């Protein structure tokens, strides 16, 4: 029992932190709020770590009943906590990266007048994210799923006085709802056919053939619709770039490292479903690679430092879905893990840069920052190398594994994935060169103020940089004859691949690595030539033409959605407002009122106000009634 309450504390403490800070935000000082919030994430991290090490040493997974939510007929919805190998890996980096970002935020948000509110939301987010990954059933996962969406909405629109920002929050919320509907329908299917929502029971039921292939396909694809919403894949991705309106640490935590990977976690968790629906997996892979390519192309043209990173997130998530699509669940999780480190680092680095240059986000007005902020520069460079897939940084291993897995399944997927990751290298180094090299392009006034960020911000950067460098050792490629630690850790619960596969020959694998690394290096070289040798700076927005213009405007996808979905909806609501509501509904209501007014106008004439008349009426009526009875009887 004592142990169980310890595990419950994993999700309980962030919630407690949210409640305390949320209710007492006017009573406690900013520093206390920051320390409290960070502690409420650090302790769960320590607990999860201990569970992790006991699992590494062969301990068994923890799964226990927490509470009963409600009971309907014979079915009761229980909430249970499942700390198995998969959820422990997820919660480990959620709390770990979450803690670092909390620390960073203490410094980054200093002086904001809603400082405590910010931290209460951050704790609430960690709570919901842990609910999502630790739940032992789809419903609990769904609660967390909705909860993180809510926190994301709060935090995107954190500076709600700016109309554009709060609109971005609404956009994220609405788009996520579309995806969530898919998740719900998927859940309904699962529940209808298997009679349960618990992962273990659902898996058993499916193993016994509770769902026919068609039903499996529908359920899996519906759940995948949910994943596209949360993980920003085609077609529901447009909210993520806009979500950059929130404070930068939020972008790092929610919109890069944790929440957006929920879709991938869900697919991995439902692997028993997806492995039986290979058609859906094909779609997952195609959508993933399409998103990766699309976002990479758009990312190459963006000039807002956070927008570039946002598109790169969509692109990397696309690669993870590609991995899922080829059935390589562990590889996808591996990339989730390494991506969490280097992408959080990139965002925090971007935040540090923006902090230094007075909130400027346009890379055309930066440049030469290398001299002023060496730590930020060094860590940002490491993260860029990692995301570009340069060995020995972590991104190389995970990305290489994805591409190798894709190569085994389908050469076309491999080629497209390779192109996407080459473009990644290009736009990342375009970002690095424009931001940190060359001369400063802002005005002199802001130049005076450029400074390295305080320790509280640089320490998380350094820690993440170390992690982004070494995390690759968790999954060394097997040509090197080294253990794939993550795969070994997860092998008891996850088959390394859903699809039959032979090991690639060593020479082929080395060739694939060579091509990927070579491609990345070529991209970096091109970026170097363009932005350092030729000192090019992207043009003003208006000067774009041709394809660049199309890509800069994100292929007009937002405009397309506006024209196809938003406008017709507005027309519909206009119609319903002006015709159905104003004329029909209001008409009926007003008519009822008018009719009773008219009727009472007639009736009230009998109410003369003369008492004698009333008495006469009473007597006559009495006579009439009596007479009626006499004659009647």
């Amino acid at each position, binding site marked *: 029992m004592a142990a169980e309450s310890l595990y419950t504390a994993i999700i309980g403490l962030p919630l407690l932190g949210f409640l305390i800070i949320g209710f007492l935000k006017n009573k406690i000082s900013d520093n206390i709020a920051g320390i409290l919030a960070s502690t409420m994430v650090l302790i769960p991290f320590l607990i999860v770590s201990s569970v992790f090490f006991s699992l590494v040493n062969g301990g068994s997974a923890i799964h226990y009943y927490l509470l009963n939510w409600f009971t309907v007929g014979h079915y009761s919805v229980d909430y249970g906590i499942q700390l198995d190998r998969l959820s422990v890996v997820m919660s480990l980096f959620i709390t770990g990266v979450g803690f670092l970002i909390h620390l960073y935020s203490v410094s980054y948000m200093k002086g904001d007048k809603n400082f405590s509110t910010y931290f209460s939301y951050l704790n609430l987010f960690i709570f919901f994210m842990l609910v999502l990954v630790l739940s032992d059933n789809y419903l609990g996962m769904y609660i967390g799923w909705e909860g993180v969406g809510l926190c994301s909405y709060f935090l995107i629109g954190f500076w709600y006085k700016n109309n554009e920002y709060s609109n971005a929050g609404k956009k994220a919320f609405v788009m996520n709802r579309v995806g969530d509907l898919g998740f719900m329908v998927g859940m309904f299917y699962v529940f209808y056919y298997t009679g349960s929502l618990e992962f273990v029971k659902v898996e058993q039921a499916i193993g016994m053939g509770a769902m026919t292939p068609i039903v499996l396909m529908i359920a899996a694809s519906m759940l995948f619709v949910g994943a596209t919403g949360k993980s920003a894949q085609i077609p529901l991705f447009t909210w993520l770039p806009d979500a950059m309106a929130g404070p930068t640490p939020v972008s790092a935590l929610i919109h890069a490292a944790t929440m957006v990977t929920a879709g991938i976690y869900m697919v991995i968790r439902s692997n028993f479903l997806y492995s039986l629906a290979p058609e859906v997996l094909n779609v997952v892979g195609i959508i993933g690679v399409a998103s990766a390519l699309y976002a990479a192309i758009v990312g190459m043209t963006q000039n807002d430092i956070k927008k570039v990173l946002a598109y790169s997130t969509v692109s990397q998530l696309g690669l993870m879905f590609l991995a899922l699509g080829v059935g390589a669940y562990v590889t996808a999780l591996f990339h989730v893990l390494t991506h969490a480190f280097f992408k959080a680092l990139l965002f925090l680095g971007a935040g540090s840069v923006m902090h230094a240059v007075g909130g400027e986000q346009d890379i055309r007005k930066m440049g030469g920052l290398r001299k002023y902020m060496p730590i930020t520069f060094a860590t940002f460079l490491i993260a860029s190398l990692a995301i570009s897939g340069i060995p020995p940084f972590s991104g190389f291993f995970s990305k290489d594994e994805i591409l190798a897995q894709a190569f085994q399944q389908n050469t076309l997927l491999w080629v497209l994935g390779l192109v996407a990751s080459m473009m990644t290298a290009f736009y990342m180094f375009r970002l690095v060169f424009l931001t940190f090299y060359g001369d400063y392009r802002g005005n002199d006034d802001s130049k005076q103020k450029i400074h390295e960020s305080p320790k509280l911000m640089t320490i998380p950067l350094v820690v993440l940089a170390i992690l982004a460098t070494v995390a690759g050792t968790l999954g060394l490629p097997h040509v090197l004859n080294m253990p794939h630690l993550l795969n070994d850790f997860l092998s008891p619960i996850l088959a390394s691949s859903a699809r039959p596969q032979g090991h690639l020959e060593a020479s082929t694998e080395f060739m694939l690595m060579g091509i990927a690394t070579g491609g990345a290096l070529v991209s970096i070289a091109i970026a170097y030539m363009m932005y350092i040798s030729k000192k090019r700076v992207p043009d003003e927005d208006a000067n774009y033409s041709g394809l660049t213009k199309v890509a800069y405007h994100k292929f007009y996808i937002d405009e397309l959605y506006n024209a196809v979905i938003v406008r017709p909806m507005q027309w519909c609501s206009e119609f319903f407002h002006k015709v159905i509501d104003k004329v029909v509904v209001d008409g009926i209501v007003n008519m009822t009122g008018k009719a009773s007014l008219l009727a009472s106008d007639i009736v*009230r*004439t*009998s109410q*003369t*106000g003369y*008492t*004698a008349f009333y*008495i006469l009426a009473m*007597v006559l009526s009495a006579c009439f009634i009596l007479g009626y009875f006499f004659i009647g009887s």
Partner: protein
Amino acid sequence: MNIEIISGVSVQAYIWLSLILFAIGVFGVLSRKNAIVIFMSVELMLNAANLLLVAFSKMYADTSAQVFVMFTMAVAAAEVAVGLAILVLMYRNTKTVNIDVLSKIKG
């Protein structure tokens, strides 16, 4: 002393008497404008009914009707108190007890 005479009167006579009293009451209520007179007429109707009840009680040798009469009188006393209070107020406000001035309750 005269109890013999009273009990010798037939029930028909009582019925006629109370009918007449009641009719006078109704006529008074309908024809007069003075609120006090109307009030008295109402009392007259009430007592016509009481008289009839007592008469029938005697005829059927059943005392329950007399109990009714007791209640009626008690209620009537309360009603008089309320009614007269209303009349006093009415007089204070309008300086008259003519019911036709009370036409403000017109709908």
